[in-house]
């Protein structure tokens, strides 16, 4: 086998034919209102903001921008539903609503996958195989908990918190909505969900699903908008709990804002995950794991393996193989079923990635970017790997949230652990080795909420997810995820 990287251009005779999914499956309305108390408000009653397809910069639809009064109405609807309906609905009945929602997501999964890919820019392969099935699985999993809370390990008859305000990011729009709503509803709370500014559409389809499930009005309310809408939700005195997923910077501000108030809080924030490769790791799987770790979802993943720590003895070979694999990644139309890396979600995010990559170059790291052709329209960034990275470089310390990998090396397991933990974050890490005892030794010493051994970026509703240190607190998923929505 040649060790020379093959460029896409040299694979011309192997080129894939386009295999596009149909955008028309999305069935989008031209404009959307807010989902409050079981019905959509009149879109014309709100300032309408366009939401773009980041792959084309075309407007997909316009959505309402919720202002303080809208948030207030949503919170009051949630409170009323909590007081009059949801708190007197038995666990078994709550469970059945959640099972219904899970089934409806499965039924409309193809449509949801297209909507997600259009609005977010992620490859249809990922929205189809990861985002949407996992969203359904989350509702299915937590449905079963609703009438078994006495057995969840928090004592008998654990009480819900009340009204939960939930603010979610743009990287996994529907999945994050499911991570927030499913445990909250199972535990007996009512919700006001604030989708991300750039990716509101799948949550609005979910609102339709909630109507189809005949979830009682007000149990879930969905208010679209920007940071000001989220701030109004955080500030609202009628909210008993805030669950936020997003940047550490905003999480810090929310925690400070809620300080001294009775509002419960969980935060799932940024990360700078280390993917640690030992010299005995199975190389084919490991190369795929590195690729999945950083290029999955264009690197718009808080737990991305954005720092590759590779043992010196195998560094040359790993980098050679990695470069060849990066060169073969198919970057382009997110709706094409063969696409590996889609569009960057927004102009703002692209600018941030470009700024940090420029910092990487100016600080002396060596840049390699795929030679792939990028589309003319839309927001794109070629998969990029930096070598000669030192721990003090910005690209080794700051979350880039894009398809950019920083490679560092180590000699001993102690050094690997020390470098992995040399960050203020603590969300996820990867360990690659065939030696189980060493893997567990390393895992014990990593300060991270999730550790993937010989795999990366795996998610499951039964598996608690969340960070330590400045990656936040609280867990989503599993029995532990219920604690975020119970007064325990």
């Amino acid at each position, binding site marked *: 086998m040649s060790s020379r990287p093959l460029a896409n251009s040299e694979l011309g005779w192997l080129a894939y034919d386009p295999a596009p999914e149909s955008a028309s499956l999305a069935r989008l309305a031209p404009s959307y209102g807010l989902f409050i108390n079981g019905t959509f408000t009149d879109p014309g009653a709100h300032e309408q903001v366009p939401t773009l397809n980041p792959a084309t910069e075309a407007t997909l639809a316009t959505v309402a921008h919720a202002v303080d009064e809208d948030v207030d109405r949503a919170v009051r609807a949630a409170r009323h539903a909590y007081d009059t309906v949801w708190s007197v609905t038995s666990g078994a009945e709550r469970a059945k609503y959640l099972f219904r929602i899970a089934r409806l997501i499965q039924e409309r999964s193809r449509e949801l996958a297209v909507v997600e890919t259009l609005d977010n820019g992620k490859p249809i392969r990922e929205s189809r195989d990861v985002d949407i099935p996992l969203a359904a699985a989350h509702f299915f999993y937590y449905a079963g908990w609703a009438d078994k809370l006495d057995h969840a390990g928090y004592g008998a008859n654990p009480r819900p918190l009340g009204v939960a305000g939930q603010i979610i990011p743009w990287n996994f729009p529907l999945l994050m909505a499911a991570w927030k709503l499913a445990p909250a509803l199972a535990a007996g709370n009512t919700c006001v969900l604030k989708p991300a500014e750039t990716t509101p559409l799948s949550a609005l389809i979910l609102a339709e699903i909630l109507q189809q499930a005949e979830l009682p009005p007000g149990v879930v309310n969905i208010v679209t908008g920007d940071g000001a809408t989220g701030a109004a939700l955080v500030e609202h005195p009628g909210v008993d709990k805030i669950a936020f997923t997003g940047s550490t910077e905003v999480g810090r501000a929310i*925690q400070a804002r809620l300080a001294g108030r009775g509002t419960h809080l969980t935060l799932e924030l940024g990360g700078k995950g280390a993917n640690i490769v030992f010299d005995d790791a199975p190389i084919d799987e490991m190369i795929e794991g590195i690729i999945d770790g950083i290029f999955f979802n264009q690197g718009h993943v808080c737990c991305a393996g954005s720092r590759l720590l590779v043992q010196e003895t195998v560094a040359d070979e790993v980098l050679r193989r990695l470069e060849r694999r990066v060169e073969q990644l198919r970057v382009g139309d997110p709706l094409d079923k063969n696409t590996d890396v889609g569009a960057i979600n927004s102009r703002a995010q692209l600018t941030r990635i470009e700024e940090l990559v420029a910092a990487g170059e100016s600080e002396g790291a060596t840049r390699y970017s795929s030679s792939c052709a990028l589309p003319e329209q839309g927001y794109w960034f070629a998969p990029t790997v930096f070598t000669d990275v030192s721990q003090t470089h910005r690209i080794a310390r700051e979350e880039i949230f894009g398809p950019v990998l920083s490679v560092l090396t180590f000699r001993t397991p102690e050094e690997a652990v020390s470098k992995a933990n040399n960050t203020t974050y603590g969300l996820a890490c990867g360990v690659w080795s065939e030696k189980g005892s060493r893997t567990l030794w390393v895992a014990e010493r990593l300060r*991270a909420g999730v550790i993937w051994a010989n795999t990366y970026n795996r998610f499951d509703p039964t*598996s608690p997810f969340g960070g330590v240190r400045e990656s936040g607190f609280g867990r989503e998923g*599993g029995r532990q995820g219920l604690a975020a929505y119970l007064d325990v």
Partner: protein
Amino acid sequence: MSERLDVRKTYKLLIDGAFPRSESGRTYEVVDAHGAFVANVARASRKDVRDAVRAARAAQPRWWGASAYNRGQVLYRWAEMADARSHELAEQVAAAEGLSAADARASVGRAVDRLVWYAGWTDKVTQVFGGANPVAGPFFNFSLPVPSGVVAVLAPRDSSLEGFVDVVAAPLCVGNAVIALASATRPLPAVLLGEMSATADVPGGVVNVLTGSLEELAPVLASHEDVDGIDLEGALGATGDLAAVAAASIKRVLRPGHGGAEAPLRRLRAFVETSTVWHTVGQ
């Protein structure tokens, strides 16, 4: 015939297993419940806080790295030491809280029993809080409770010993290192219990006890970037300000009144993280 003159004791800080006076040389007067002078107690400085944090950070891996069985025995040993010196503790609790001798003895008894209760938790939390997760795929997946790391606790103002035991032993038994700020007005039972920890095989730096001004020291603890969590039980009116300061480094914050008997495990869980490991299964 004259009575024998007492040999009085100087009450000092506990930092890194040693008993320094405050590096600042400052002290303050502690009086009993009736206003009578009891002692000049060390008044810790910001530098003492930083020294304690450094000691706690350095000691924590070894404490967590010890077996749960061993940590349980060390905490139980601490309870043995406290029980053996319960008269001394009761005397100070009575003076500090204005209790009768019998009530003070009862309070010390409850405090020691509480310590025994926590000693028994060290090797239970992993099974009670953790477990295996049946993920859909060829993986073995398990979640373990792990300590947050370095935890600062503001001991309650009034409950000089029982309250102190709760705020210190809970984070300790799950593997954290602790920096405790004793009640400013009733510090002596805490100082005594700290002394006893040093003869109970608690490794140096794992338990640090500071005395001094809440207003001066609590903000230093709340803002210190190498403190992972803070229990504000004794924060009094400063809860909101301290919680806001703690937000800068995304600290775990336990609010006053949230670790009580109605939710006995809340305090145990407050400074525990869930660490989840996925491992591939294959031939």
